[in-house]
């Protein structure tokens, strides 16, 4: 699936209206787009909406793809921006509407865990991050993208990406609890 030349060819065809090329692009990238959306959005339904919006944007703006970045990078950008836009719209609606009652998972109730064990509250902790930090962490640590590529996707300098990733991880560590302290070591300011 990771074939940048094939992706570029498909994008060129898609830009000229080739429906089969669009379909193949969906085949190749919809899992990735959905995975990003699932990490970024508040629930599965919202993630599906974001995935749909991402591909609609792809269809409508394929002719604006310049070919400089990889198609996957372009799609990551569209997907991430789509998620951020939808989240901001949702936030605006929430501020205009009466607060809804819902039970957030309690991160403080987290048990110590192995670093390789997948914790059920990881998604809740991710969603508690500020959106810009969440995007950086998701792209870096879940999708394994390089800082330079994330910089292209988020359209911020590499230093900003690093800062968001590092601070995002710190916030997650706090949310998820006793990560660093299996031996009871205390944090001190002294070397």
């Amino acid at each position, binding site marked *: 699936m990771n074939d940048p030349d094939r992706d570029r060819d498909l994008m060129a065809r898609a830009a000229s209206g*080739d429906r089969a090329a669009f379909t193949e692009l969906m085949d190749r990238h919809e899992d990735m787009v*959905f995975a990003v959306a699932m990490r970024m959005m508040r629930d599965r339904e919202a993630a599906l909406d974001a995935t749909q919006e991402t591909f609609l944007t792809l269809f409508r703006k394929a002719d604006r793809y310049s070919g400089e970045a990889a198609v996957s990078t372009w799609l990551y950008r569209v997907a991430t921006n789509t998620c951020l836009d939808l989240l901001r719209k949702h936030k605006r609606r929430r501020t205009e509407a009466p607060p809804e009652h819902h039970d957030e998972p309690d991160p403080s109730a987290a048990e110590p865990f192995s670093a390789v064990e997948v914790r059920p509250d990881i998604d809740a902790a991710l969603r508690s991050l500020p959106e810009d930090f969440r995007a950086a962490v998701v792209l870096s640590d879940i999708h394994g993208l390089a800082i330079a590529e994330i910089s292209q996707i988020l359209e911020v300098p590499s230093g900003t990406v690093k800062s968001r990733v590092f601070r995002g*991880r710190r916030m997650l560590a706090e949310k998820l609890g006793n990560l*660093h302290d299996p031996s009871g070591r205390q*944090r001190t300011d002294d*070397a």
Partner: protein
Amino acid sequence: MHDHDLDLIAEFASGFLTGADESRAAEFVRSCDRCAAEFEDQTNIRSLLAAAPAPALSEFERTSLRRSVFDTVAPPPRARMNWQRRFLAVTGVAAAVLVTAVGVGVVGQLGGSGGDDSFTVADGGESFATTTAASDMRVPPADSDDAAEADEEIGALAADEETVDDGAVAESAASSPNLLIDAGEFATQDELDSLLAEITALVADTTDVVAVEDAVAFGATCAVDVESQLLAVVIATIDDSPAQVFLSGDRLEPSVTFLAGADCAPLSS
């Protein structure tokens, strides 16, 4: 005591450092609890997220997603729906007779076809135009006069729709011993092929016609002559034009009357 450069430690945990910076960070981690804790946090969170299983689309979600996307970029234009209703208005009763006579009647709507098809999408996805040229069939392009003629005819017949109870037509067909298939939207050649395979199976099961020789899709504004002995008809919209898929059995020759789009012709018999 040193200044805790936590970003330096995070860079170290991320594998970004080399040379003297790497050595310096490693020394901090060895000698400073806070730096060690930062290293551990960064490393553990990184490992935790990397190990998280990727969320996956279910097949139902995948299918729904495709349909939603293609429905939005290629909504069935009103003319298509009108055309289908018009077809039912003109042929509904006779079609019921027809399907009773031949044993199978299939009515559906096709949103597109595969092959060398193409389409353009205007910003906002409200406008959609397609052209189709499958390799094994000739598709006479509808010229503007034909299109205008078709539009006029659709407009003239639109009044008839007011008197047509689509539900009654569907019920009429459904209550017959035959099958009414709502083919829905078909975005790909594979979907069309699946439908045709299904029709073929139906034909084989329910009539003494042993084979369906061909299925032909063509674009133009056409209507079936209901006096003909068509084995099965799929009302389809391919491109911007209503189209039909005819299935001709080995004993039955399709006979077609074209209400509009004079260039439209079956490509096999």
